[in-house]
């Protein structure tokens, strides 16, 4: 495949980008049947940080992520990744999206699904890297299996490996563990961030799970229901790497409570929780 990429700078020499969104609006449909999916969102993702977007279903958080990925264009407002437009960054293969559905091509083996990302990004083949990523996500010995022969969790991990195959410095994770059972999800939550934390990436994570958001991110942004607006912005100052033991720490629980309150899942912080929060 001939490569007409604009910029040939090796991706590994580029640092994690800053992502900025100004007054972003997104309206679907026309006239009476139009739906305002995202309303006046202002957002800055600092380079090298992980930010989680949480909010009720259908609140437009996935739409926001898709706009950052260049899959949708804002109706008004602007999004810049390291000063460039999303679709330009996408064309350079410098962002990577993990979708809710692992979206592996069923006729390709695990290894060739991962390798496909490099081909799509216009990068040279690198079987060793593919192999390395697959063993990193624990798929040693499954390289030549097709998706139908893998379990749900394995498929999800394969999709994460594919997401990492291009050394993109911007990871956009749209509910990547949404289709996995609770136990597998918790394990992936703890294992997988180690794979990309070392690389220095800016990460945007969309999730339904408050625990997952706190466990993975440096910052959690809570969005309100339609139209999606930022209703709370909470910093998560828990040291990395995050471990299972964090899940039961008072600080962790206080943050979970704070976010649940912002989401309206809990009406009033209970006494214990607010005391914990105060201490944190």
């Amino acid at each position, binding site marked *: 495949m001939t490569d007409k990429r604009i910029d040939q700078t090796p991706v590994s020499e580029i640092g994690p980008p800053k992502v900025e969104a100004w007054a972003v609006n997104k309206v679907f449909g026309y006239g009476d049947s139009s739906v305002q999916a995202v309303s006046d969102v202002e957002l800055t993702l600092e380079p090298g940080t992980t930010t989680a977007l949480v909010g009720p279903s259908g609140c437009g958080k996935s739409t926001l992520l898709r706009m950052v990925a260049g*899959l949708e264009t804002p109706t008004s407002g602007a999004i810049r990744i390291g000063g460039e437009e999303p679709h330009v960054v*996408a064309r350079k293969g410098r962002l990577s999206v993990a979708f809710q559905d692992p*979206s592996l*091509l069923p006729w390709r083996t695990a290894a060739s699904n991962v390798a496909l990302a490099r*081909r*799509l*990004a216009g990068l040279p083949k690198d079987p060793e890297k593919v192999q390395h990523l697959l063993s990193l996500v624990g798929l040693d010995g499954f390289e030549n299996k097709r998706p139908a022969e893998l379990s749900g969790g394995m498929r999800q991990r394969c999709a994460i490996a594919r997401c990492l195959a291009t050394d993109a410095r911007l990871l956009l994770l749209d509910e990547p563990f949404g289709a996995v059972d609770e136990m597998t999800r918790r394990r992936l939550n703890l294992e997988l961030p180690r794979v990309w934390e070392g690389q220095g990436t800016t990460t945007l994570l969309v999730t339904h799970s408050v625990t997952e958001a706190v466990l993975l991110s440096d910052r959690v942004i809570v969005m309100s229901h339609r139209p999606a607006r930022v209703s709370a912005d909470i910093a998560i100052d828990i040291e990395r790497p995050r471990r299972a033991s964090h899940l039961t720490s008072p600080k962790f629980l206080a943050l979970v409570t704070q976010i649940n309150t912002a989401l309206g899942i809990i009406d009033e912080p209970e006494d214990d929780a607010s005391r914990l929060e105060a201490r944190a």
Partner: protein
Amino acid sequence: MIRQQVLLTEQMRTYAGFAGLLIAWELLARFAFGQLYILSPPTAIVMRIIEDLPLYSRALSATVSEALLGFILGNLAAIVLAVLVVTLPPIERLAQAIALVVFCLPLVATGPILRVIYGPGWGPQITLAALSVYYTTFVPLVVGLRAVPPSWLDLIASYGRGRLTAMTVVRARASLPYLIASLKIAAPAAFLGAIVGEFTGADRGIGVLSIQAMRSLDVDGTWALATIASAVAIIGYAVVGWAGQLLSIGAPPSLLVSPASKAPKVLWKKLFMAVAAPTLSCVVILLLWKISMDGLDLSRFFAKRPGDVWAYLVAGSQAAAHRSELFAALRETMGTTVLGYFAGLGLGAVLAAIFCMLPAVEKIASPVAIALRSIPIVATAPLLVLALGRGQLGMLGIVAIMIFFPTLVSCLHGLRQTPGQVIDYFDSFRAPPLTQLFLARVPAMLPSLFAAARMAVPMAVLAATVAEWLATGTGIGNLMALTNSTSNYNMLWSCVTILTLVSVAGYALVAMLERRVLSHFAPEQVI
């Protein structure tokens, strides 16, 4: 082990079904219809084939070569067109319209016209073979190329890649099950096209021998040729299916559903789609017609232009007389055709429902039906003429049988699509079989029934005109045969134009009804 045994008994049942059929046929032919010049016993057919093997194999090699070339050309055209439509959505409506019009051309009349254009040789047979496969490949392929999970396309887009990459990396491979399934149907269809081409004046081939046998009331010969044609068609169907299995390509969920295109939401776009798009398609088709005739510099004597047909039917001084002659013949044809169409559809759907109620019968009958489905019925028309007579009944039978088998197979497939959970739900109430049939299975069958009904419209016209051309001596088929032999090409082209219009209108009518019904019963099929 147990699984193997089950498979074995199932296979044995199928063989037993075939064997039973053959024995009944032999007995009937020997003792009931022996003197009627209708039915030949299987043993006599086999004897005849062995006796005339050199003659038959020469004819067969000609017909198979024509069919093969037509198969390749028609399917290539379909693939190119489908890929174009999916990569360039704006041309879709136009391409669909042109594809449909070409599909609706009455092959019987196209044959003689192609004959005068090409002169002697294989040209018309190959063209007709190509014409009879390309639509049934084009429609499912467009559906298959589109039936890709949106997240796969998002994946491509998230790396900044466009339609071309989506086509090569995702769509091409994802549509293979659809392609294989339509190639399976195309194999017998190409054979049918070649034979229809031979009916209308070739010097050799199975079609030529069939007509000779029919005209000389050679019952054994007619049966022998129909048997050969059927066997070849079934072999073609099986070979493509086997190739698909070899490549481990599964079956697509549903075949021949109408390719969904997004309905526009804005009013002016809706109006444009309703009025301007069909008009534009008509203009482009008429232009293509004129340009291709002019471009090939074909004599105006036999290669008529749209203007000639207009003058003949509308503007000219004799136009009223021409119209009344043509429409009288059309009326005569349409009565029987419509009757046969509904008889075939109804019979197919009802029998499918009965099979569904009696699983034991289905196990035996279903493989037989699938095998018979791939028989080019029109190629066996001479046989049906012998069996059913030269009257309207024969024609009705040909039309009904032509439509019956595809409908039966399509409906059986649809009935099997009923979700298992729905059946479980009905079972949990011990719902009686009939309740289950009408409330759960028939709604699941509707998309397949309508798909069959849509595709059956041009098939019915083809069957009716072939029957009239060969046998009954009535209707528009006969009119075309007459005008062909008297070189009245104005009338022939007018017949082609009107019959195409009738087919397109019938197809559109069924498609409209389909939308109405499916938006109620299977909204996921209508976008």
